[in-house]
């Protein structure tokens, strides 16, 4: 059995001292891992990250995080990462980590992800450099996610994102901003390799549950959606999810995808 605690979008700032820690005292009794799906800070100030790691100091299970868009706002993601890493928190971006828990190997592959939209309403990397950069960033993140998932030889694989991979968990948000909340490219990367769970945040007005086309459960663990400090998940068995058969991107005319 593997027990996962997950949270996102705590947006910690210097005004949040003492708000989270009292609600984490039982987490280590309830979970084997804590995964944080981005937006740990208000504006990406390392001082905000310092406040958060102090709030997390009693959480005596491994903590794995990805950064979110808020953590980039003041252009200091490396400094934020250093604060978190200094407190023993693993920050993933295009890489992975695995743990042996109760005889089961569980791996976490993480990327921030980015936007671009979902089938029927997607952006293309065409035209102005800014537009190509926007979609190109998402394609690059999706490719790194796929590589990170492939690197995991585990009984259970979890994809940890900030941006959404499916539109279902965005329901409640204005449809017009879906392209800024996530991208199908993330789900496609996940389905190509296979995973047991996808966690993301970012969509504060979204919904909690969704699923990829390949059947992988997706959970939006943004705090305003959960309305609690964290969500708890449990894998009772060890069955690994089989990836679905998808055409490889180079076979699709006009596609350029650098997954490897």
């Amino acid at each position, binding site marked *: 059995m593997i027990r996962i605690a997950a949270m996102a979008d*705590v947006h910690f*700032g210097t005004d949040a001292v003492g708000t989270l820690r009292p609600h984490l005292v039982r987490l280590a009794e309830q979970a084997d891992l804590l995964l944080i799906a981005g937006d740990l800070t208000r504006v990406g100030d390392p001082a905000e990250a310092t406040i958060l790691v102090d709030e997390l100091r009693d959480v005596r299970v491994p903590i794995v995080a990805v950064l979110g868009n808020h953590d980039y706002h003041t252009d200091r993601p490396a400094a934020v990462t250093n604060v978190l890493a200094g407190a023993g928190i693993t920050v993933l971006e295009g890489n992975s980590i695995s743990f042996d828990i109760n005889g089961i190997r569980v791996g976490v592959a993480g990327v921030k992800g980015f936007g671009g939209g979902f089938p029927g309403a997607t952006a293309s990397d065409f035209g102005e450099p800014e537009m190509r950069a926007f979609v190109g960033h998402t394609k690059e993140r999706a490719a790194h996610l796929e590589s990170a998932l492939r690197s995991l030889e585990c009984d259970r694989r979890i994809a940890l994102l900030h941006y959404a991979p499916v539109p279902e968990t965005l329901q409640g948000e204005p449809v017009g901003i879906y392209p800024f909340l996530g991208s199908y490219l993330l789900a496609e990367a996940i389905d190509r390799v296979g995973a047991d769970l996808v966690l993301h945040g970012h969509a*504060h007005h979204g919904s909690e549950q969704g699923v990829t086309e390949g059947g992988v459960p997706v959970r939006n663990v943004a705090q305003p959606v959960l309305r609690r400090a964290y969500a708890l998940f449990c894998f009772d068995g060890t069955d690994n999810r089989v990836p679905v058969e998808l055409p490889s991107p180079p076979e699709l005319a006009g596609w350029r995808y650098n997954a490897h």
Partner: protein
Amino acid sequence: MGDRPKDLNPYLIEHVRDALAHDPRVGELDVVVEIDGETVVLSGTVATADRQEAAADAVRDLLPNHHVRDETEVADFVEPTEVEHLP
């Protein structure tokens, strides 16, 4: 040339949202802003009580002739009571 539009609230709403994102006291992107006449209504969840107060202050600073009705909620970090069992 057509008549000048009477209701420019859609523009104003987006300026308020932008101000809430960039105001150093607030830094919140997900506050819902509605404008009804001279009243600005704020809703959604903000991370702290300080930011809740700051959001209303930021709107008052931006639109001193408007009334602010603050319906935002502060994030509540209560412990979970349920576990989702996955296959």
